[in-house]
């Protein structure tokens, strides 16, 4: 199974990953529209953490024994058979936040769409490389 690998030594904290993730998960898929016209604004599922010169982009690690899957009470949080990603089935999610509470990386967020759901990295579905990896200008993220 492929994973997103973080190379913190090359992350320059430009946050292009955040922007591209947001656009990728917006309705329009257009950068200006995603930021200016979509309400509520779509959420980025990757976040750059910074401390001094150290920075890295953190998204769901798609753990092998994912606590969020075990602790999901509806079964919405499940492992995608195809790419091994831990993904949230938005139709089943009721927003109980068991996943947020159990994620040791703090990468699950609340999102309010038609109803409240847990929002997290889905490895951009199955369309090849995730947007954050493709758009990282310094290859600080890799998908392998």
């Amino acid at each position, binding site marked *: 199974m492929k*994973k997103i*690998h*973080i190379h*913190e030594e090359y992350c320059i904290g430009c946050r292009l990953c955040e922007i591209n993730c947001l656009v990728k998960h917006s309705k329009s898929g257009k950068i200006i529209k995603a930021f200016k016209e979509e309400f509520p604004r779509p959420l980025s599922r990757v*976040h750059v*953490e*910074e*401390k001094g010169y*150290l*920075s*890295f982009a*953190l998204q769901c*690690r798609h*753990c*092998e*024994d994912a*606590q969020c*899957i*075990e*602790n*999901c*009470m*509806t*079964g*919405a*949080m*499940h*492992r995608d058979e195809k790419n091994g990603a831990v993904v949230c*089935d938005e139709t*089943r999610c*009721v*927003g*109980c*936040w*068991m996943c*947020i*509470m*159990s*994620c*040791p*990386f*703090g990468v*699950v*967020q*609340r999102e309010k769409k038609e*109803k*409240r759901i847990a929002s997290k990295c889905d490895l951009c579905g199955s369309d090849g490389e995730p947007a954050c990896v493709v758009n990282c200008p310094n290859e600080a993220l890799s998908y392998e």
Partner: protein
Amino acid sequence: MSNGETKYLLIGYSVASWWCAHSIREGDRSGRIVAVTEEEGPYSRPLITYVLGKKTGDVAYTGTIFQHDEVEIYPRKRVVEIEPRDRIARLSDGTDIRFQKALIATGGIPIFPTIPGRENQGIFTFTRRSDMESIDTFLHGHPARNIVILGGGFIGLKTCEAMMDMKKNITLVELAPRLLQNMLDEEGSYYLEKALAHSGVHVIKEDTIVLFETETDRLTDVVLKSGRRIPADLAVVSIGVRPNVDFLRNSGIEVHRGIVVDEHQETSCPGLYAAGDVTETRNLLTGERNVVAVWPEAVNQGRIAGWNMTGREVAYEGSLPVNAVEVGEKAMVSAGIVNPPADGYETIVRKDRENYQKLVLKDDLIMGAVFVGEISKSGIYINLMRQKLPVETFRDKLLDPNFGLINLPTNYRKHIVKGVGIEV
């Protein structure tokens, strides 16, 4: 229905049993697993409030864990007696099941105090699908306008949340000076009460129901201890649950508040295991033995029991009370010791108009956490608590808005969870 081939018997079939079966199947692909449940079949119990509130369509658990587990389910049956020495379980229909190993995961039963008038219509507890269905039917049959919920605990609040969108007058009655008394402190409760008030829920604290007033068997009012009278068409009593252990009375299995288990989730009778809300386990942080009735611990205990039943020795690290809830758009996460005794503990608080965050520290370890409002990072702190990582090096960064994995010691951050390739 006596059958000598049953290798594993699961008494009660909810989350602890599911994960137990899942763990068993990791070590034993073929041994026959039988699950006895009082219900129609497996479903996710916490979902009942969401279904009632039409937040989701049904209570089914759609996780993938059942797919390969091959469990034979005996529905609508109850185990009435266990003979631990002979490894026989007697069912409510009179049949016996002979087993090799068994898991007792019968969960909790709601506490219903003897309040006069409680036998009348319109008064419910709310822990099972059948409760949900009865309330739903009741609501359809009667145009109930006024709802009273007794108990501002977890179930009470979730019931509240479920009924909020029904345009009813809801009153929440809580005996303690705060809501969620085990999970919140007074200040955190204040944020929650504000959100509830905003959603039109009336909260009455430090009071309780002493009388259900009825008219032709129908609830009309409740009378509180303080003497207040509140009109009510429907009352939900949710002041807590206690372990469902009555059927073990003559079995010889040691029961304290819950079933006493060792770190392998084994009871005092070898071969008999217990997991979930029915067990009494050692607290991860304090070492005290108590019943921690939360979903994640039921999962953990079920898994541990399953592994040990198939011979893979795995020790349970201890239970950590954790819970999350969202009421009136106010999310909340709590874990560990949130109302510490005075000595030796230190608290860090960070708050603004919408958010309240509190950490309880002792000897450089995080012992408790409360998050109201912004909760995304709560998992990081809870994991620190589980891993018992000293916070010395990043103490000043705790609760910083930008706090994240990056503040943690490099070695820890790079190998934060079990499993391959999760390094940061």
